[in-house]
């Protein structure tokens, strides 16, 4: 039986973009990558899976149950999301933020006991798993970007959900922190035998680590399959609208892709992702 089952889901924004008739399944323990160009519908899909928005047509089943009929708290016990960006509005401390991940396990009407003994033990384990225990009493707004992403990850792990949705988990990180976050995520995925869905525009990241890839563009699934089946010039060129070369990674043997700059494509525009442009503007 599949853990996640998406059946003919349609969601259109007022601007017209979104997802069109998307169907796929995820097996237990699988690490699925969802890749595609900007505004392909990746983030929309993630929002639909976590019930931030409801599909206009079709349905989404988590362990056989339609999430439209599931309460938010019940869903949050099964599905945790690692968001792309992590900003906390008030000067909360790291320990307090990680404990917020315990909310779905302790939501009561009057008092939420998510900082009880059990909650604290799980939160501490999450802090240790991400190597952020020494930051527990620091204010989140005083942390560096890399530390903040690790705390966000600890928050998601403290939720103890069997399904983890990752939204560009390494997009804003330097090389070292990319490595740290990835190794923690992969270790967690293997140890817990959980199900992980990775949404990323980083094709090489997804190809390197995922069991299976979904390539989406224009809100539709173009191809699905093992990385070496999906990462081919034939699939990618129409999706991204630019020529690519694919080679094999010297160590892992997984496919590795690179765009080709030529005269017809203006420098930097075709495959420079908006987040990269933002990053460059900041520094």
């Amino acid at each position, binding site marked *: 039986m599949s853990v996640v089952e998406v059946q003919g889901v349609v969601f259109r924004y007022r601007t017209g973009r979104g997802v069109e008739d998307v169907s796929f399944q995820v097996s237990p323990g699988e690490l699925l990558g969802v890749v595609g160009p900007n505004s392909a519908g990746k983030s929309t899909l993630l929002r639909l899976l976590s019930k931030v928005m409801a599909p206009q047509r079709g349905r989404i089943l988590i362990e056989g149950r339609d999430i439209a009929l599931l309460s938010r708290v019940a869903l949050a016990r099964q599905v*945790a999301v690692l968001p792309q960006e*992590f900003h906390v509005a008030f*000067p909360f401390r790291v320990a307090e933020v990680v404990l*917020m991940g315990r909310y779905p396990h302790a939501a009561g009407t009057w008092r*939420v006991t998510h900082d009880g003994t059990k909650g604290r033990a799980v939160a501490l384990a999450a*802090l240790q798993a991400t190597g952020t225990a020494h930051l527990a009493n620091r204010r989140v707004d005083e942390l560096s970007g890399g530390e903040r992403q690790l705390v966000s990850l600890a928050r998601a792990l403290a939720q103890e959900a069997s399904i983890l949705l990752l939204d560009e988990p390494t997009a804003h990180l330097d090389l070292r922190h990319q490595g740290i976050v990835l190794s923690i995520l992969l270790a967690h995925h293997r140890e817990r035998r959980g199900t992980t869905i990775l949404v990323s525009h980083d094709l090489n990241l997804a190809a390197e680590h995922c069991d299976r890839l979904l390539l989406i563009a224009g809100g539709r699934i173009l191809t699905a399959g093992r990385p070496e089946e999906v990462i081919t010039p034939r699939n990618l060129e129409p999706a991204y609208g630019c020529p690519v070369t694919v080679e094999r990674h010297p160590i892992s043997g997984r496919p590795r892709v690179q765009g080709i700059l030529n005269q017809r494509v203006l420098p930097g525009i075709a495959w420079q992702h908006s987040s990269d442009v933002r990053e460059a503007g900041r520094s």
Partner: protein
Amino acid sequence: MDPTPFPEVARWRAFPLLCLAGILLLGLLLSVMVGSVSVAPREVMRALFASGTDAQDPAVAVVRYIRLPRAILAGMVGAALALAGLGFQAISRNPLADPAVLGVSSGASFGVTIATLLGLAGPFGNPAVVTLFAFAGALLAAVSVYAIAQVEGRLPITTLLLSGVIIGLFFTSCVMLITALLAAAELQGVVFWLMGNLAPVGRRTLAILAITLAIGVLVLSRHASRLNLLALGEEQALQLGVEAERVKRAVFVASALITGAAISTAGSIAFVGLIVPHAARLLLGPDNRRLVPASVLLGAAFLMLADLVARSVMAPAELPVGVITSFCGAPLFVYLLRSRQGGEAL
């Protein structure tokens, strides 16, 4: 074994709350002692607790019938405004939100002047009806501000503040228009009330203020931990199982209600909702489960002391208490706006 990294959150930090309660009691004592006639602490105790004291005793009369009711009124209005500020700050995820800054106070004033125009206010009117009008005005203003400020489901601080200013100015103009239409007799009362004052009010008015304040405390305490999660952003709050829309709506309505009740009894007193939650956050951190009781206690103490200053500095003349709160609040607002915390939130 107790996990070591959690000293800050492991304990329910009751001690600072007890300190705040102590400050409140001290403020109350000072409020009844100081004035045109000073009353010694022992006299105060006698006036408060001795039974069957004759009304001829000036100390008893001053404490029981003048200063204590005024201090209680100041305390409740201060608590209500502080709590409303805390509520608006939590749902807009910004420490700069305050009933006056958001124009909600002007909306409530507009409601009250409408009630006056219809002849429902004044000594023969029903204070519950006036409060209802103030509540409706506050709600109208708050809904307008949030509707104007919203950009793609977010509340950027610049548009929030600008729309607060615009809505505030608009409702202030409406109030001026109505005061121009009022008869001279009603006019005097309205102008006096508009300046923000803690003149004596009837028992019924006090009771209504107390009930609304209790509703506000109840709603905000109920949702306090969910408001904490809202600080992560609406999308993440939803993904953690919080019915964000429902929580925001409940807190929004409750904050507008207590603003309406405070404004209809004491007129427009600015910045209490900004100063008090900020001070409470400095003392206790941003956890709303502690900030709700802390804001109530500190708000009450703050307005009592502000009123004490307002009636002492130029005695026997009396300043409107709103002058004192604005003199404290405006610099703090500027500081928060320029600091990272306020300027970059959202």
